[in-house]
């Protein structure tokens, strides 16, 4: 195991909604440049894990560290400032704002001087967005919205990118395209946490994976090992 400080580390996380115990003793590590996927069915605690990482939900016990720094009590905005970005589930674009403004929001924490460069980078990755830059984000098609969401996240030049269900609600062709982009971004050196129900596709590009079930991490390991795992196959891959 490599001993450098992990980019993100969850240790002994227990999260509750009221009396309901959601996450139970979760531990997770993501290192620089890694592509990690977090698998789980409905209501397994995937979104809660993400929210805990982001600080939208505070764990009752356990710590969240970014770059070795304990951020458990740090509010969301300040965590984002430390080099995280997210493509949320269902994309969550700002509908009444233009594509350009959406991207601008992604770079909210970056100095204004850097904006130009970031726009160029994102438009290069998604030329379509350049064409659509003045259109309201709410009027775009699902695939286009996915691009905006990705672009928006990349605007902040994150070290760690969180993706919540990137395949949800997309046509199979677009899913494939989506994952190509994910791979591409990861290759550029951005560590990623991809939260997915679609285990097959995500494990095929990931370095490592975690499997959540009713709030517990039941499996973890290298992606290729997980692909071979009997239980997982039964549960997710239908084989």
């Amino acid at each position: 195991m490599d001993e450098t400080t992990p980019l993100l580390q969850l240790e002994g996380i227990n999260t509750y909604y009221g009396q309901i115990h959601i996450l139970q003793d979760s531990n997770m590590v993501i290192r620089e440049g890694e592509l990690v996927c977090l698998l789980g069915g409905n209501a397994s605690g995937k979104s809660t894990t993400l929210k805990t990482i982001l600080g939208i939900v505070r764990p009752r016990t356990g710590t969240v560290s970014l770059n070795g720094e304990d951020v458990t009590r740090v509010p969301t905005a300040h965590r984002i400032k430390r080099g995280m970005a997210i493509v949320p589930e269902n994309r969550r674009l700002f509908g009444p704002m233009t594509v350009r403004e959406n991207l601008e929001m992604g770079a909210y924490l970056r100095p204004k001087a850097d904006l130009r460069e970031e726009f160029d980078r994102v438009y290069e990755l998604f030329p379509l967005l350049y064409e659509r830059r003045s259109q309201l984000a709410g009027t775009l098609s699902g695939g286009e919205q996915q691009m905006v969401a990705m672009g928006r996240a990349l605007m902040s030049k994150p070290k760690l990118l969180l993706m919540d269900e990137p395949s949800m609600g997309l046509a199979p062709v677009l899913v494939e395209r989506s994952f190509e982009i994910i791979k591409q971004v990861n290759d550029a050196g951005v560590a990623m946490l991809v939260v997915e129900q679609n285990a097959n596709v995500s494990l095929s590009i990931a370095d490592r994976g975690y499997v959540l079930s009713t709030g517990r991490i039941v499996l973890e390991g290298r992606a290729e090992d997980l692909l071979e795992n009997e239980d997982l196959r039964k549960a997710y891959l239908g084989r």
Partner: protein
Amino acid sequence: MDTFVQLTLNGLTLGSVYALIALGYSLVYGILKLLNFAHGDVFMVGSFIGFGVLQLLGGATDPVLPLWPLLIVITVSAMAGCAVLGVVIERFAYRPLRDAPRIAPLISALGVSFFLAYSMQVLFGAEQRDYDAFSLDNGKLFLSGFDIGNVRVPLLRIVIIVAAFLLMIVLWLLVTRTRTGKAMKATSYDREAAAMMGIDIDRVIVVAFVLGSALAGAAGVLFALRAPTFPAIGFLAGLKGFTAAVIGGIGSVPGAMAGGLILGFAEAYTQGYISTKWSDLLVFVILIGFMIFRPQGLFGRPDIKKV
């Protein structure tokens, strides 16, 4: 014709004050989805701060400052005072209820409104306070100006209308051009997603309260330059501003401006042409009809989410 011009002028004066109040309602509603019932009382406190500062500066009959600096000092101190008040209210009465069921902050707002209105009454009594702006420069503000036909447009009205519109334009620029403004818009659309972008929600909310309350403070002074103020006026002013915000589509900045003006005109014309006695009733009946047939207001987007 003269009557029409005069009534239009009346409506414009009153409407621009209503619009300033409505903006505060809309800003806060847009982001927090909270009907900030205490907003009218912030307006009232603003008018009292203006009154107090005016007295400190020698009163209208014997001011230590020339006219224009005096007006600016009064307005700016009221805006600053109200901004602080707005932040305090948000911090202590609303923030602890951020994730509570909707009714909680609403009731809290009613409580704050009551608290402010009656605190002012404890401290300063219930009577009307008159700035006596007529005494400033021997009635210059009321008597000089230019004419449209036979109708005189007095300086004070020009001041009120111009100041109100300037403030609205500044706000409009802040909201549409600056990053913080855009962050406010993003937050009002999807608070969680905005947080995920690194937008500091608490800060955005505070900014909304600062802006809204400062505008209310300015509105308080602009209003009280023409008409007396008293602690109970907050409820009424709040009701007017709130109504204006609703007409325009609560949460929408241009809507609040339009709503304020529409309400001002509606009041002026019904009072001028129909009946002074029944004008309030007419205005409210029209509003109820409006609410039923176009609940989202003129500029509001229809509420897509069901229940």
